[in-house]
């Protein structure tokens, strides 16, 4: 198996730390944006695992907490841009929920940069790739989520 599957969440002498990121993507904009990046064959790091939800508003705080508990080093929540939500305003709910989530993560000693929220439209394949790259790099720089953060959950 490749590194991201088998490697423990700790720096390996074999290479740089490869973080595991779970990306929650809404079906109508962000997931389509990821598909667009694929159709354009833009490559990006394989560290992200994509979980599709119909709407970013469906992304329950417990999904994020569960992802951290199950071994994710970072979480990405991607939504439609303001005014573009297929369900009118689910993305606004998701934004508000993310703000609360960050407060909770702070209390648990988890760096905010591990939980990024952004907007990616169906046409923004390039932005999707940029956001994934930035997130992977940011989480890589923070190192694996172990110790205090994971234990508290």
């Amino acid at each position, binding site marked *: *198996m*490749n*590194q*991201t*599957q088998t490697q423990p969440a700790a720096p390996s002498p074999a290479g740089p730390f490869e973080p*595991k990121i*779970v990306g929650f993507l809404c*079906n109508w904009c962000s*997931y*389509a944006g*990821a*598909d667009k*990046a*694929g*159709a354009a*064959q*833009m*490559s*990006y790091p*394989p560290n992200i*695992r*994509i*979980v*599709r*939800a*119909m*709407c970013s*508003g*469906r*992304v*329950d*705080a*417990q*999904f994020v907490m*569960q*992802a951290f508990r*199950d*071994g*994710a080093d970072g979480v990405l929540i991607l939504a439609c841009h303001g005014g573009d939500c*297929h*369900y*009118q*305003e*689910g993305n606004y*709910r998701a934004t508000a*929920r993310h703000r609360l989530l960050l407060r909770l993560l702070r209390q648990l000693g988890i760096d905010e940069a591990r939980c990024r929220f952004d907007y990616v439209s169906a046409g923004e394949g390039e932005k999707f*790739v940029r956001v994934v790259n930035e997130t992977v790099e940011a989480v890589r720089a923070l190192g694996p989520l172990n110790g205090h953060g994971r234990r508290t959950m």
Partner: protein
Amino acid sequence: MSVGIYLCNCGTNIGERIDFSRLQEELLRQPGVAYATPVDFLCAQDGRRFLEADLGQRRPERVVIAACSPREYERAFMQVLERAGMNPCFLQMANIREQVAWVTPDVDQATGKACAQIRGAVERVRLHSPLFRTEIEACRDVVVIGAGPAGLKCALTLAEAGRKVVLVEKSPVLGGMPVRYEDLFPNMECGPCLLEPVLGEVLHGPHSANIEVLTLAELSGLKGYYGNFQASIRQMPRYVDAEQCIGCGECVPPCPVSAPNEFNFGLDTRHAIALPFPGALPNVPFLDARTCLRSQGEECTLCRDACPVEDAIRYTDAARTLERPAGAVVVVAGFGLYDCRSLPELGYGTVPGVYTSLEFERILASNGPTGGELKRPGGAPAGSVAIVHCAGSLEERHRPYCSGICCNYAFKFDHWIEKKLPGARVYHLYRELVAPGKEEFALYEEARRNPRAGFIRYAPGGVRVTGAEGGVTVEYQEPAGNRGSLTADMVVLCPALTGAADAADLSRLLGAPLDRFGFFAELHGRMDSAQSAIKGIYVAGACQAPMDIQMAVSQGMSAAGYVLSGLADGKKLEIPPIAAVVDETRCSGCRTCAWVCPYQAIGQSPEGRAASVGALLCHGCGTCAAACPSGAIRANHFTNEQILAEIEAVLA
């Protein structure tokens, strides 16, 4: 539980970039995975036939297809499952083309990521429950609110398709605003003439029996949901029986009352019994009870005495509330103008001779307060007119948008001023000029060619209108800073179009939201602009956005199209299976879900405090499930358990 996995190689698209033999080896180690079969082009006819036959033979309990994006073929594969005798929801796709093979150049890394995504799908699909489409009977009748051009065409189209339509109009006259305009841009067609054939069809055409026309009527309540609405309609008495009245108008002159005439925006007066204006349809006078002497206790019967028909005027008529079932409601409630009193520098309401464009339309109209003479009511013919475009538009503190029609009607005004008063000066004071469309430029060019027309561009807030001896002074500042002034006999303001004054009340009754400008919010600005956010409630015409007659009528027809396809004859309404369901035993009745639902799909269960989802209204976004503090809401096919299992497996 056995899971069958199909690995589509998509030709070389996936097959050459992911190591299938390693993938198979890994996946077969997962408990419950019965097989992991590579297939060529699963989406092709051959592939789908193979899938159907293979499912019939191997009979897995759940299916994972690792292939392209589910946005491409998920529905098609669900149909294959159905044909193979399985519940279509027993499928989960793993997107290993767009989101793995095409974006991961390294085969090892791609194989690892594909494996994780497929494991996620396997663990998720185990927890899929069978979902079934359910159907309910739906009422095919339609309530159309508003009898302007868009509402009339919508009602007529539906009636021609055999639908029963209740056409609800709050005023005593049909035709909306354009019936009050002498002429219409871009080609000077007469407004009433444009509508006459449609009105004729609605009132007396071969399908008119399908249309119940209710004037002086407003929606007073709406219960139910898509397919099964119950509309309450409050109709004020006309006091003149439309069946008996011959439309001679003999009743009008004897009336001793004089009241401001709202059909001419108060520019003249009318009697208490009146026709809104000559030529108004239906050609039946109405009695305005608020101004009639009888409402002050006087026993006046002058109108009835003058009426040549026995019993056509009935003082005993009373308001009534009608209940009508409907499958859908079309809102065609029209527009308002931005209140020019919020622009005090423009002098509206304080400086005599300053009119809104709607008032000026009536001054131009031959059945208006001046009989079509271009002058202030009671004044002398105008020698000069200043037209202030963009009043209240293009400014965030008023209305940031361009209404798109004002320039066109301003050039129409220019045309009539030139024609009716040769020698009169016209000034166009504008911030921006727009004249899109294939015919509209001609009017603009004509205005530009008018030797007595001047075009002056002004800076934001750069127009000040004050009274002057025998006229009106207009001071302006151009964008470059230079100032100037002119005098005119009349000033016409072209205010931003807004939602109608009563749109907020109507929105509350319907549960269909308004946008921040007071227009009815559309489901999607470009693809579904004639649908509201609420299923079964459609919006058309200038109640949805500023627009011209052409676009309003197209939207009215579009709304009719939605109704005819959504509530098609001989078809039941399908309740989508991917919807939210409340576990009443866990619900605390806190209403958080109802608050976050963008579709007002969540009400209260008839038995108690618990929330209850109207399955027909639910769009399946799952926002309520994420918001519920008690975990009492299940988002079908996207349940917590399913998503949590997927998260765990993709990280394993």
